């Protein structure tokens, strides 16, 4: 089962705007890309065309691991607005 298929089992109510923003000027110089490896939903990737880091906020499980793992401070992370984001039915 792929991670996308796993996330498809979750209930999401996605906002239009992302609750996660990246500072590309920081990402540009990052070699480790801890975000990619630590995100349990596998939402971070490098866009090969633009050579920029990107994050699929729509599948976010709202754990906050990425902003903690990113020791370079690129990630600005807030909870989604009230009533948006993942809605756990089991938890």
């Amino acid at each position, binding site marked *: *089962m792929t*991670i996308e298929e796993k996330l498809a089992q979750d209930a999401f109510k996605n906002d239009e705007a992302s609750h996660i923003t990246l500072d590309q000027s920081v990402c540009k110089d990052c070699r480790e890309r801890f975000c990619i*490896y630590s995100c349990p939903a596998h939402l971070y990737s490098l866009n090969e065309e633009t050579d920029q880091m990107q994050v699929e906020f729509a599948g976010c*499980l709202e754990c906050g691991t990425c902003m903690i793992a990113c*020791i370079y401070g690129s990630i600005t992370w807030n*909870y989604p607005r009230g009533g948006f984001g*993942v*809605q756990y039915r*089991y938890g």
Partner: protein
Amino acid sequence: MEKIDVVIVGGGLAGLSCAYALAGEDLTVLVLERGDFSGSKNVTGGRIYLGPIRNLMPDLWEEVPFERHVAKEALTLMAEGSSTTFQLSSQKMNQRPYPSYTILRSRFDRWFADKVMGKGVYIVPEKRADDLMLEDGKVVGVKTGEEEIGAEVVVAADGVLSFLAEKAGLRKPFEPQHLAVGFKEVIQLPREKIEDRFGLMGEEGMAHLFVGSLTKGMMGGGFLYTNLESISLGMVIGIDAINAINKREPREEVYRLLDEFKESPEVKKLIQGGTLVEYSAHVIPEGGIGVIPKLYSDGILLVGDAAGFGLNMLITVRGMEYAIASGVMAAEAIKEAKQKGDFSARGLAHYEDLLRNSFVLKELETYRHALSILKNPKWFNYYPQAVCELYEKLMWIDEKPKVKLSSTAYGELRKNLLTLQGMKDILSLRRI
């Protein structure tokens, strides 16, 4: 400005417990919950221990929608090509009042929220607190969207990432070594299958921990809890351990470890035929007493995960009992502050006294060094492997004449444990 007495930010266990304990008093209380309902943002492994908290809310624990009471414990040491499992079946744990239960938070918190509402406290769903209102450095309420809610005291029950604690200047920036990430699948299985597979009768349940090769040397482990009609299967790994391993090749995408764990022979047969119904993740505060934030200030108290009340005790990870107890103690302190008419830091200071005299800060103090001991990667790769190899060698019989058991055991022990480093590692365990 008009003020209510208490605004509780976060309708999880800490916030709800505080609200429950405040209900029926001569206080105006409001709970803000950012999800659709209480529980919709909450995740546990999970298992809750009732022993420490039963007397805090004695009337609550009848007919609670827990899953199963834990009557069986197992710990599996995972190695490459083998594993060793210790299992405890306990009659003591299988007698009422049951000491611990498996739990699914979305269900439990939602039920708890109904109880709180039933006692007359209003919980506003879909409401995120964006900021604190400050006046001369004192907290005087919260901002939510365009709205301002003035309050004598704000209870920050906004979870491990507590942005309110940060805005109040009570906690330091996050450091990866103080936090772990837990991620899990809820796998649906018919009741009878669960009971057959795990050897359980009725509502008996099992808690099974795994440590060793599954985390590739990273601090952490796996867990499996039996629910009534599902299995919670997941892993917890230290965030700095994930960073450390990913400083060089080969890299490890952490989410894949759970797939590998599921494919291991130890787990595969236990979840066979099950259907994944949810995938979740949550951060766990593991920094311990050395890094907990300041717990209160003028007009604000921190409770539960927001206060850093989590603990990796090696044999189990704790947090929910601390959340409930700290919520109730915050309520006690608030009642007293109301009587004195003093919601300043001085008026709320009783909160910390209550915590210090309770299991919450006593346990955190006792396990002060737990995390530093767990930082030794040998617990997660070397020793589980050593135990499994020894056991395998003892049990192995082939065409060669079997040597003395004591020679086999001594040879393995000398190689792995009776070394200077081995002795140091064993001795380090005295500190927990």
